[in-house]
């Protein structure tokens, strides 16, 4: 009830004005803006005061109040008995604002040209407008009166000219002799509308024209102002609506027209002239428009319109048949054509004329009737049979005629594709994954390929037929024969033709279907039923053609499938992107590293070096010069690569470097040259090309390691010096190996390479020791396994832990086998010196603990020195400072070695070494 009552109350209430907007939840009630902050800005953003009755405001003084800062009294007010405020007479300007006096205000104070000085150009436009207005005005010609009434103003320019002797209507320039071309209007012409009194409008000119003594020169004709009115309508070119002047006088005869043609010049001449164009203003009169107020002659207004006035027959128009007033009657009039050419009835545009002679009729040749066995495939008749002797001739012909290559070359055996060659050779088909190359082609390309194929196929046939080749493939005499032949050709290889993927006629589903059926039947070998799959609506010829097409398609599919599909693998990346962004350098296979780690071959094998771009700011913060000041890359540089590029898999920069150390100096030089920091595709390919060169032997060396691996490691260990040279030949055979395999291999190869070189080194450097050393190392290794178990014991740690640790760390040593031994032998000596030093430490420990022979220890130490030195050398080599140090080292004595190592240590400040010395 309460609700109802409230409702009713509300209904009863009468509300005035518009309600305030309901407050949003949480919205604060806006405080009223204080007075001094109520500001208004003008268009330019300046603060504006409310001012000026003229702009709709009110005078507002200080902060939009009426007062000033001083209060209500204007500060300007000064009044005293002596000095009375002088009464100023206030004009309207005193009450105006700046805006009012500005350019667009109501009382602009800017300097403007008055009418006296204004140029006439403006007036001309005005004039035109006025003329048009006159034409369009309800009462035609009224504007003429305006002109009459309007004050005649003479501009300064005109006045000046006048003073110089110019008269209106004249041109400006030296006087010339001429014949007045203007003619007086025919007195018989009736002037409708407001023809101006002759005395006033045309008088001067006409009189001038009339009076033409022979020896008097005339002023040049006034230049006709160019009428530059833009075309704004959608009428055709040259179309004029109702031309008032012509319509007005249209009924009159020929002379009248002549008058106007002559006079048109004058009129247009005068159009520009303010004074004289006035008189030419003429309204439209005529029956269609009723009787104009100014027309004197109105007797025929109500005359009945008789049909006789109209043409009832389509025939050649007579001149003067009352068509005036509409588009360009003048030309139509003036050009009288011979009767025979009156074919064209329409109007002719300005500047165009009908041709006087009609062109000869186009002769139509009927198409030649096609011979029954015609196939719409063109081949050049005088085919030059391909052969070695006329190869040049053929080529010349080719060039001269600009023929398609296929036309000329297909006859040669080189034009045979792989499948055809294979057939001829009787080889078996390559098996490959099903997807064919065709899948990767666009529809269009496929079509084109097919056509090419067809053409070539056809020619092949022709050639074979003509040549009576030994395999005697005869030109098929009929479709059945063709089917036979094809079937023979395709044989069992058709098996996968037409299977799912290949849709040569995908564009034409019907055809595709037919094709599939066809292939199916072909597979079953029912050759006689082939025909029924073809479209019965087709002509025989079409059918034959299609069958041929199918055969070829099947053939093509088969061949391409077999030959090409084996070369392709499924895309790893998306199909529609043919480039992928991959880091330019990728960390190599972990497997190789794993093995390297197991063998404790740290160093090159486990290291990847990449170009890395630090952020500029980071360099700045680290107070380091930006290593790549020009590059905008941050982080590892990325490159766009072809998805299928082989070089995504090929990263074999390091093997080359390591191998070179083992090989001679010359090779090292070359290595220095093309030691690839980042293998680019071209680098690699170049190398592969160069393989035969002696310079790039080292690459082959790297390759050869794969070969070595397969061989027993015996030659390498026993005969290290010759090992490398032996390997060379094997390498060549290995060239053809899969690239992936190669890419997978290098690290192992590398390892081998290192091994070989190291053993080489060792044998050369410490020949006497070698015998002794080999043994100790092995024996010690054995002892190592036992000993290392001891170590944790001594350190009072849990035994089982140490055992596990032992297994982890001593991976290689435990599984003792012949191979193991070999391995240790192999890399023991070569091992990156750093590693060996580490191992030596262990040896030393053992020695100390077991009190082994002192001498041995010494030799060890010596060796260690050497190792260290070697390491140093290696480093230096890596830096590329001196590469043939090794040889020097080999020859150098122990003392120099030690001193070297000492100096090295000093320079590098490696404390561990010093410690060791103690």
């Amino acid at each position, binding site marked *: 009830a309460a609700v109802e009552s409230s409702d009713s109350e509300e209904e009863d209430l009468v509300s005035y004005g518009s309600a305030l907007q309901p407050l949003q939840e949480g919205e604060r009630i806006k405080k009223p803006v204080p007075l001094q902050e109520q500001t208004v800005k003008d268009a330019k953003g300046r603060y504006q005061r409310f001012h000026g009755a003229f702009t709709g405001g009110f005078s507002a003084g200080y902060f939009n109040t009426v007062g000033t800062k001083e209060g209500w009294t204007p500060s300007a007010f000064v009044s005293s008995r002596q000095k009375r405020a002088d009464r100023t007479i206030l004009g309207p300007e005193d009450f105006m604002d700046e805006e009012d006096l500005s350019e667009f205000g109501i009382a602009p104070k800017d300097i403007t040209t008055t009418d006296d000085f204004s140029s006439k150009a403006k007036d001309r436009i005005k004039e035109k407008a006025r003329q048009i207005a006159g034409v369009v005005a309800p009462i035609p010609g009224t504007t003429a009166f305006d002109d009459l009434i309007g004050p005649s103003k003479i501009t300064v320019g005109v006045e000046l000219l006048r003073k110089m002797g110019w008269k209106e209507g004249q041109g400006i320039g030296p006087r010339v002799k001429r014949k007045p071309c203007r003619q007086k209007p025919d007195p018989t012409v009736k002037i409708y509308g407001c023809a101006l009194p002759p005395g006033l409008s045309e008088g001067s000119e006409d009189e001038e024209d009339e009076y033409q003594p022979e020896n008097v020169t005339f002023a040049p004709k006034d230049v006709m102002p160019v009428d530059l009115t833009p075309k704004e309508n959608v009428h055709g070119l040259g179309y004029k609506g109702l031309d008032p002047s012509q319509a007005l006088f249209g009924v009159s005869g020929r002379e009248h027209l002549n008058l106007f043609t002559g006079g048109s010049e004058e009129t247009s001449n005068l159009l520009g002239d303010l004074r004289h164009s006035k008189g030419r203003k003429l309204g439209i009169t005529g029956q269609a428009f009723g009787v104009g107020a100014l027309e004197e002659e109105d007797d025929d207004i109500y005359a009945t319109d008789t049909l006789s006035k109209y043409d009832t027959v389509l025939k050649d128009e007579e001149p003067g048949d009352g068509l005036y007033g509409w588009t360009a009657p003048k030309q139509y009039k003036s050009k009288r054509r011979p009767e025979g050419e009156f074919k064209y009835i329409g109007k002719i545009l300005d500047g165009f004329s009908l041709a006087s002679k009609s062109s000869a009729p186009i002769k139509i040749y009927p198409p030649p009737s096609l011979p029954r066995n015609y196939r719409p495939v063109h081949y050049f008749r005088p085919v030059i049979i391909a052969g070695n002797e006329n190869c040049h001739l053929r080529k010349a012909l080719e060039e001269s005629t600009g023929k398609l290559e296929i036309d000329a070359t297909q006859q040669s055996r080189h034009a045979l594709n792989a499948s055809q060659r294979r057939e001829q050779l009787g080889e078996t088909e390559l098996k490959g994954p099903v997807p064919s190359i065709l899948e990767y082609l666009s529809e269009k390309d496929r079509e084109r390929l097919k056509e090419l194929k067809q053409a070539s196929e056809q020619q092949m046939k022709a050639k074979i037929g003509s040549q009576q080749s030994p395999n005697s493939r005869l030109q098929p005499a009929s479709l059945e024969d063709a089917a036979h032949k094809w079937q023979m050709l395709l044989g069992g290889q058709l098996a996968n033709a037409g299977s799912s993927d290949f849709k040569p006629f995908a564009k034409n589903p019907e055809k595709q279907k037919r094709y599939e059926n066809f292939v199916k039947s072909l597979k079953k070998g029912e050759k006689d039923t082939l025909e029924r799959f073809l479209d019965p609506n087709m002509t025989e010829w079409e059918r034959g053609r299609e069958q041929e097409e199918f055969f070829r398609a099947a053939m093509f599919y088969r061949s391409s499938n077999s030959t090409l599909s084996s070369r392709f693998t499924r895309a790893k990346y998306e199909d529609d992107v043919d480039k992928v962004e991959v880091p330019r350098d990728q960390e190599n296979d972990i497997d190789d590293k794993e093995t390297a780690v197991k063998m404790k071959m740290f160093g090159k094998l486990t290291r990847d070096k990449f170009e890395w771009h630090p952020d500029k700011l980071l360099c700045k913060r680290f107070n380091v010069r930006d290593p790549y000041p020009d590059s905008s890359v941050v982080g590892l540089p990325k490159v766009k690569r072809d998805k299928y590029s082989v070089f995504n898999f090929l990263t074999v920069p390091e093997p080359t470097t390591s191998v070179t150390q083992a090989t001679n100096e010359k090779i090292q030089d070359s290595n220095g040259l093309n030691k690839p920091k980042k293998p680019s595709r071209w680098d690699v390919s170049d190398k592969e090309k160069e393989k035969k060169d002696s310079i790039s032997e080292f690459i082959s060396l790297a390759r050869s390691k794969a070969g070595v691996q397969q061989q027993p490691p015996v030659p390498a260990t026993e005969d290290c010096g010759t090992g490398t040279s032996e390997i060379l030949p094997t390498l060549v055979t290995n060239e053809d190996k899969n690239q992936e395999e190669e890419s997978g291999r290098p690290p192992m190869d590398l390892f081998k390479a290192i091994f070989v070189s190291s053993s080489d080194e060792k044998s050369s450097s410490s020949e006497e020791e070698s015998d002794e050393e080999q043994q100790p190392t092995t024996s010690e290794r054995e002892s190592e396994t036992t000993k290392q178990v001891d170590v944790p014991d001594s350190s009072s740690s849990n035994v089982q832990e140490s055992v596990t*640790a032992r297994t982890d760390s001593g991976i290689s040593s435990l599984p003792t086998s012949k191979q193991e031994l070999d391995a240790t032998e192999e890399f023991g000596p070569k091992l990156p010196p750093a590693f060996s030093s580490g191992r030596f430490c262990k040896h030393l420990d053992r020695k100390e603990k077991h009190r082994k022979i002192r001498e041995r220890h010494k030799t060890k130490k010596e060796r260690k020195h050497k190792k260290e030195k070697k390491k140093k050398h290696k480093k230096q080599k890596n830096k590329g400072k001196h590469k043939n140090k090794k040889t020097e080292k080999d020859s150098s004595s122990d003392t120099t070695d030690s001193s070297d190592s000492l100096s090295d240590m000093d320079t590098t400040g490696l404390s*561990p070494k010093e410690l060791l010395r103690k």
Partner: protein
Amino acid sequence: QRVQTLQCGQGAVRAARFNADGNYCLTCGSDKTVKLWNPHKGTALRTYQGHGYEVLDAAGSFDNSQICSGGADKAVALWDVTTGQVVRKYRGHAGKVNCVQFNEEATVIVSGSIDSTVRCWDCRSRRPDPIQVLDEAKDGISSVKLSAYEILTGSVDGRVRRYDLRTGQLCSDYIGSPITSVCFSKDGQCVLAASLDSTLRLLDKDTGELLGEYTGHRSTTYRLDCVLNELDTHVGCASEDGHVYFWDLVEGSLALSLPVGQGVVQSLAFHPRLPCVLVATQGQVTLWREDSFQPEGGPD
């Protein structure tokens, strides 16, 4: 020899770190705090609260004016030492921040996270995002160390990466098993890497060759620290069996094992100049000195 024991009272101590001159140390607790200590006297100086989760690593700036810390709340915080307030907090890591380091001038904080990125944060500008993200690692970053121009990172993917700003190179050394800790030797020539196969490896920085291998401790699951002593003569590593092991750097022989406690030794820090080790295990941090420091025997 145990000199001082700090009962931190901040839960498990995730990391104990010396400051630049070794007079003070920072401990990171699982109670979301970082504490500043004078380990030699055993006095707690200040507690820094502000992390949202346990703090995993901390580092002091060269001038002792700032502390950076990273925690399991994925944030890296920059503290003002004296006021104890968080100056800045860098968010951007997608996972726990395992390690933080200042560069030499404390203008950049480098943090490594379990999200396999290393992020370099600018301390100078107010930039909220890192200067650079090093996302080459395939697995979490367990350790980060900085030299004057290098960033050394150890990752669980078994690689030690060294970003050389001066030459613009990234050297990635494959170790095999997950790296728990890396550090430079004092002479800057070697890199020590501890991995989860209970092995410490000393690698030549330039060539990546193995200079030494140290085994005997147990490190299979935890992220344990490894250190080099002040003279680069010994290598130390925390172990899961409650000991801290020291090896002779050159010979690779086990020189010493400190029985610290029962639990896993969580963190280890070597004094920058003195033979002095800070060892964090469970809830306490102990300071160990050399023999000569006090009558009884100790490390070295």
